[in-house]
């Protein structure tokens, strides 16, 4: 029997498979059993009501999709009074996600949300579509440190910091978040992109820029997970383009302790459950007693000498 549980700091998950924030709600109970998931991850909430960005909010691109939803939310009061109790009908730990435009509001949000039954606080400092120009805290070391520090001083809940792949030096941002006291890193949010409709000559989505997600971005994010895992001691949650079992294993080998799945929920909603079952079978077949043993297990040797490698037998 494979031990499928993983520890993210003080939090134990029954398995390493979680939905990604923004791609999940209890509405998914229409098609899957939510109690099978490693954790439930709520959509990001802000203090006040936000209508979100103008439609169209999504467009297909090769390798996935580009979206600009704009963090619509009914606000923190509704989240605490209605959504948290709704999530708590299910057994996996609840990860609440917050966003704000100032450090002061982030701090206040963290304080207020921490009074609820959430088990983990995800700090979304990296949404690329909230600001029309794609700016956010996670693009800067100093901003990341300052906001995470204030939140660390505000709450005893475990805090996960969601990073941005749009930062110039993601590793430096990861170190800032760790130094500030983050319990784990989510690597990462979507990649800022632009798609133009060649019939209308206009941007394909209503907010012009959007976040790219789906299997097309996976190698980029796997690389970032690997780099961050080498640089920090806190656990890393891989997030980007997972559509099959093999992708989860790859993320874990790169250094992720757990993963989050977004796009696949849109394409094959039953796939997230199939991946949990498949991961257990794969571990059993390969002789891994604990799925956690996959984390960081990539064989990491220096590249071979070119002529020797090119002369080596293939396969």
């Amino acid at each position, binding site marked *: 029997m494979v031990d499928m549980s993983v520890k993210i700091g003080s939090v134990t998950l029954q398995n390493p498979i979680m939905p990604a924030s923004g791609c999940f709600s209890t509405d998914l109970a*229409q098609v899957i059993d939510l109690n099978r998931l490693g954790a439930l991850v709520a959509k990001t909430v802000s203090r006040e009501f936000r209508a*979100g960005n103008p439609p169209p909010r999504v467009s297909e691109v090769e390798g996935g999709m580009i979206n600009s939803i704009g963090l619509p939310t009914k606000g923190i009061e509704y989240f605490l009074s209605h959504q948290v109790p709704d999530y708590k009908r299910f057994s996996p730990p609840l990860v609440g996600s917050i966003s704000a435009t100032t450090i002061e509001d982030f701090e206040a949000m963290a304080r207020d949300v921490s009074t609820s039954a959430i088990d983990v606080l995800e700090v979304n400092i990296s949404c690329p579509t909230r600001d029309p120009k794609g700016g956010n805290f996670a693009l800067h070391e100093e901003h990341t440190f300052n906001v995470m520090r204030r939140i660390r001083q505000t709450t005893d809940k475990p805090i996960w910091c969601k990073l941005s792949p749009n930062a110039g030096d993601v590793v430096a941002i990861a170190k800032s978040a760790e130094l500030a006291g983050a319990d784990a890193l989510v690597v990462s949010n979507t990649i800022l992109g632009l798609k133009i409709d060649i019939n209308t000559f206009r941007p394909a989505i209503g907010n012009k820029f959007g976040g790219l997600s789906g299997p097309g971005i996976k190698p980029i994010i796997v690389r970032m997970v690997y780099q961050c895992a080498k640089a920090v001691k806190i656990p890393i949650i891989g997030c980007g383009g997972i559509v099959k079992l093999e992708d989860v294993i790859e993320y874990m080998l790169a250094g992720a302790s757990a993963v989050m799945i977004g796009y696949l929920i849109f*394409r094959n909603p039953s796939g997230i459950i199939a991946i949990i079952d498949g991961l257990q079978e794969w571990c059993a077949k390969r002789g891994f007693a604990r799925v956690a043993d996959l984390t960081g297990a990539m064989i990491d040797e220096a590249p071979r000498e070119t002529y020797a490698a090119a002369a080596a037998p293939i396969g």
Partner: protein
Amino acid sequence: MAHRPFASAPYVVGKGAPALAPTHIPAEESLCPVVSHDWINSEYKHLVVDASPKALAVKPGQFFNLLCPSPDAAELWLRRPQSVYRIDRENRRIEFLYKCVGRGTFGLATLEPGDELNMVGPLGVGFAIDRRWKHIVVLGRGVGLATLAPISQLAGECGIGVTAILSARSAEFVMADDLFGKVGDVIAVLDSDATSAVEHVEAILKRLIAQRQADAFYTCGSNRLLQLMKRLGKAHGIPGQVAMEQVMACGLGPCYVCVRTFEVDGKKELRRVCIDGPVFDLQEAVGW
């Protein structure tokens, strides 16, 4: 483990029972064999699939989110929502009638009998009908006709009469004729002979109201016709429903992609077509 208590893979129609899918989960991803797939005219195809038990519980106005094959060398990365055209519970089949307009529907059009179609559903809120009504009016245009068609099934089951006003560019595109004709009157209004003009349709609706044959309004497929029905519905106190469309991603609720504007007591709000609809109150819809 003797069995898996939860469905973890698509239900494959024709390949036995699913792995004890819990009954409290109303929808599912299923692989449905194509029974037939024919062109109805130069733009529309009629698709019939064998459906799973959960899929067969679909109600008129609900939809499925379809994973369409690619029409070209690239891939399709998002599903396409498609309302049901007809529910054939006797033969355990579901039918779609769709217009080929983009990569999704052109991809869907490549399916041949025997191929499998991956469907997620049934999803959303369907049409409501009040059994006390005697006669209802259905007004649709273009692709909206297919969405409205199952109302005739529902009305027929409830013993309610239907007048269907079907608006199209030309006679070739009035397709739901057979289906509506079984339970009521069909009035085709066309661009080709100018009968589809709003004033003409308004005169027909007013006549039906005067004849007490308009206990409720249903519409889909045209903003002009939505506004017309809204205006007459309000003036005469006739309840109504509208089926909406919007670009969609998950089809299940969480992603908030498919929002449309609604208005209640002068206050505008966004609602999701996939889970708050696709059928909404006629008076609350702002634009189709």
